[in-house]
C-alpha cells in the first residue's frame, strides 16, 4: 500500500491546519459556496428523494452481484476492442501503466483527474519508467508544479490555496510576468497544457462510471481535459475501482442528475463523455489502444462486510463540503487520498484500521454528510462501527481502555456508582470555584483544550430525583 500513513498523525496535522492563518483564511472563503449551489440545484429535480433512492438501489444491485457485473463489463468492453487488466494494489497499477507505456513507446502521458492514480502514487512511478506525467485538471496541475503536493479535496483539489499562492507558483514555474487575475492565470495554464495535450502519446483518466451493458467508461469534467486526454493521444488508459460498474445507460442518466448537483451544484457538468472501444475505421480521432485497469486496493474485502454501503460512493464530495470538521481543518489533515467523512471511512478500510485511528473520531456525527449523500450512505453509522472495531481490536489507548473498564464496572454496581458520582460532582463543583465552567480538566486535558467543561451544581441527578419523589 502506497501510503506513508500520514493518517496516523491526524491530530498533529489538524492542529497545524488550525494554526495556519493562510489555510484558515482560504477555507473560510471557500466555506458554503458548494453548499449553497447544491441547495439551489437540487430543487430542479421534482423528486430528489426518489432519485436518491433509485441511485442507492442501482448501486446496491451491482455490489450485491459485483463478480457477475464485473465479468459482464469485461466481456462487453473486450468485445469493443478494449483490454481489461486487473490490479490488486497501487504497485500493480504502476506496473501495468509502465508496461503499457513501454509497449507503445510512450514518452509523455497527459492525465485527467484520477483519485486511483493518487492511491497508487502513479506520477512518481511513471517518471521512474521514463514517462513524463502531466496533470491537466487545472487544480491538479497547480499541485503537480508545487512539488507534487497532495490534493485537499476530491473535486476542488486546490480549495486550500489562494489566488496569490497560485500567482506566485505560475510566475516561478512558467517564468512569465506575475499575473493576478484568475482568467489570465487560467489562460496561461491553458496554453502550457495545450502543447502537452498535442504532444502526449498516452492519456490517463479515472472513470466516474463503467457501464456494463455497453462496456463504456463515463467521464465527467467541466474543463474539457477529460475529453482532451481521451481524444488526442494514441493510447488511453482508464484506471478505476472495481465498484464503479453500473448496469445501463438509463442508470447513467439517473446518476448524472445527482452527481454534478451534489458535487458543484451544477444541473449537469459541462462535459459528459461516454467512451466505448477504440478508434473506428476511418475515424479521425480517438485512441488506437484502450486499456481498463480495474483496481481492488481494499475494495473486494469490503464487499459483503458491514461496511458494504460505502462501496456505493460516487465521489461527489458533498459529504466533505457539508462537514464542519472538514470546513475547519481542510483536506490535508486526513492524511490520505480521500478527506472528509467519506475519507474517514475509506482510509481505515483501504489502508488498515490501525493506520487511521483518529479518523473515525474526526466527526461530530451530526449527520450532515448522511443527509446530503446522493446515494444515501449512512456515514455516521459507518464511523460509529469503525469506532467499535477499534475497541474490539484493542486499538484504543490504554488509558481510555482502563477508564471505560472502570466506568463499566461502576455503572453495573448502583451503590458504587452512587458513591462515585456523589464525590465527582462535589469535586468538580469545588474545582469550578463558583464559576459556570472549568477551563482545564486535569483528567482530560485534551478535551478542555478547545472548550470548557461545564461545572455541575453540586448534587447528582439521583440525589435530585430522590428529593423530588418525596411528597
Amino acid at each position: 500500500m502506497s501510503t506513508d500513513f500520514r493518517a496516523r498523525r491526524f491530530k498533529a496535522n489538524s492542529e497545524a491546519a488550525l494554526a495556519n492563518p493562510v489555510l484558515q483564511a482560504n477555507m473560510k472563503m471557500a466555506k458554503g459556496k458548494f453548499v449553497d449551489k447544491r441547495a439551489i440545484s437540487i430543487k430542479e429535480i421534482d423528486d430528489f428523494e426518489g432519485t436518491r433512492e433509485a441511485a442507492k438501489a442501482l448501486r446496491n444491485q451491482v455490489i450485491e452481484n459485483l463478480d457477475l457485473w464485473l465479468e459482464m463489463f469485461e466481456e462487453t468492453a473486450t468485445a469493443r476492442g478494449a483490454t481489461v487488466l486487473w490490479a490488486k494494489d497501487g504497485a500493480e497499477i504502476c506496473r501495468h501503466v509502465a508496461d503499457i507505456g513501454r509497449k507503445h513507446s510512450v514518452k509523455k502521458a497527459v492525465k485527467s483527474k484520477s483519485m486511483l492514480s493518487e492511491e497508487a502514487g502513479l506520477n512518481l512511478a511513471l517518471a521512474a519508467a521514463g514517462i513524463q506525467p502531466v496533470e491537466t485538471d487545472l487544480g491538479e496541475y497547480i499541485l503537480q508544479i508545487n512539488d507534487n503536493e497532495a490534493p485537499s479535496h476530491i473535486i476542488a483539489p486546490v480549495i486550500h490555496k489562494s489566488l496569490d499562492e497560485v500567482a506566485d507558483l505560475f510566475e516561478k514555474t512558467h517564468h512569465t510576468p506575475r499575473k493576478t487575475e484568475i482568467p489570465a492565470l487560467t489562460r496561461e495554464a491553458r496554453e502550457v497544457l495545450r502543447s502537452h495535450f498535442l504532444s502526449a502519446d498516452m492519456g490517463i483518466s479515472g472513470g466516474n462510471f463503467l457501464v456494463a451493458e455497453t462496456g463504456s467508461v463515463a467521464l465527467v469534467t467541466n474543463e474539457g481535459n477529460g475529453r482532451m486526454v481521451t481524444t488526442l493521444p494514441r493510447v488511453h488508459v482508464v484506471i478505476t475501482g472495481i465498484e464503479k460498474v453500473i448496469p445501463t445507460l438509463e442508470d447513467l442518466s439517473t446518476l448524472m442528475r445527482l452527481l454534478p448537483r451534489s458535487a458543484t451544484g451544477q444541473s449537469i457538468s459541462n462535459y459528459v463523455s461516454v467512451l466505448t472501444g477504440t478508434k473506428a475505421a476511418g475515424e479521425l480521432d480517438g485512441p488506437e489502444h484502450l486499456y481498463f485497469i480495474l483496481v481492488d486496493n481494499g475494495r473486494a474485502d469490503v464487499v459483503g462486510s458491514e461496511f458494504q454501503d460505502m462501496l456505493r460512493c460516487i465521489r461527489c464530495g458533498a459529504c466533505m463540503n457539508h462537514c464542519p470538521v472538514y470546513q475547519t481543518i481542510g483536506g490535508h489533515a486526513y492524511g490520505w487520498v480521500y478527506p472528509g467523512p467519506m475519507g474517514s471511512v475509506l482510509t481505515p478500510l483501504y489502508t488498515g484500521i490501525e493506520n487511521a485511528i483518529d479518523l473515525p473520531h474526526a466527526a461530530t456525527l451530526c449527520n450532515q454528510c448522511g443527509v446530503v449523500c446522493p446515494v444515501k450512505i449512512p456515514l455516521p453509522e459507518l464511523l460509529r462501527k469503525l469506532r467499535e472495531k477499534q475497541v474490539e481490536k484493542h486499538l484504543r489507548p490504554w488509558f481510555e481502555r482502563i477508564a471505560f473498564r472502570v466506568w463499566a464496572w461502576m455503572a453495573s454496581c448502583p451503590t458504587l456508582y452512587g458513591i462515585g458520582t456523589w464525590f465527582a460532582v462535589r469535586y468538580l463543583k469545588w474545582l469550578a470555584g463558583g464559576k459556570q465552567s472549568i477551563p482545564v480538566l486535569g483528567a482530560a486535558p485534551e478535551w478542555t483544550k478547545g472548550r470548557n467543561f461545564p461545572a455541575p451544581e453540586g448534587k447528582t441527578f439521583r440525589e435530585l430525583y430522590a428529593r423530588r419523589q418525596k411528597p
Partner: protein
Amino acid sequence: MSTRADILGRVRAKLNRNPDNAATGRAAIEATLAARQQGPRPAVDTQKSALAGRLIEKSLAYSSTVDQVATAAEAPAAVARYLAGLNLPLKAVVWPALARLDWSGSGLVAEARGAQDADLVGITGCFCAIAETGTLMLCGSPESPATVSLLPETHIALVPASRIVAGMEEGFALVRAELGQLPRAVNFISGPSRTGDIEQTIVLGAHGPYRVHLILLTAE
C-alpha cells in the same frame, strides 16, 4: 493465481457465491438489462415548441448563445453574422457531414476535416439535443470528428428542432434505434469549457471552447 482470479475469487467468497445463486444472479442481470428501468424524471414538456423553448433557456443559463433560422441552408449566413459580430475571422473547420452547405456563399472559408490546434472556429451539427439541461449530444464518426467541438476557441453547433429530446434517456434510445450500438465517443456538451479551481471563481475556456453558439434550425 492471476490478479483477476484473486480479486474475483475474494468477491465471490464474500458474496457466498455458489452455482445456485450465480444462476439467480445472472437471471437478475438479464432482467435488469431487459427492463432498462429509468429513475424518477423531472417533468419536461415534450411538445415541440416547449422542447425548443427549454433547450434555449437552459443553454443560455449555461453561458451558451442561441440564434434561430429556418433551415440548414440559412446556417452559413447566420454563422457569418455571428463571427462578424465578434470580430472573429470568417474561417472555420466544419464537420465533413456539413461540407455540403454553401459556406463560401456567405464569405466563409470552411474546411471539412478534424480540427487542429490553430483552428479558431469549429462548426458541428449534433446527434440530438437535450432540453432538460440544455445539452448537445454529439456522436463521433469519420463524418463528425470530436476535435471540432473541442480544440477551437469558438464552437458553433447546428441543432435541428426535430432532434430535440427531453432527457439523456431519449438520447440513448435514439442511438440504439439509429446507430445500433454506441459510437466510440458520445459527448454531452453543456456550454463552454469552464473551471472553478482557483478560489471557486468560474472562468470560461479552461481547455475547450470559450464560446458555444447554438443555431437552432426551426424547420428541420
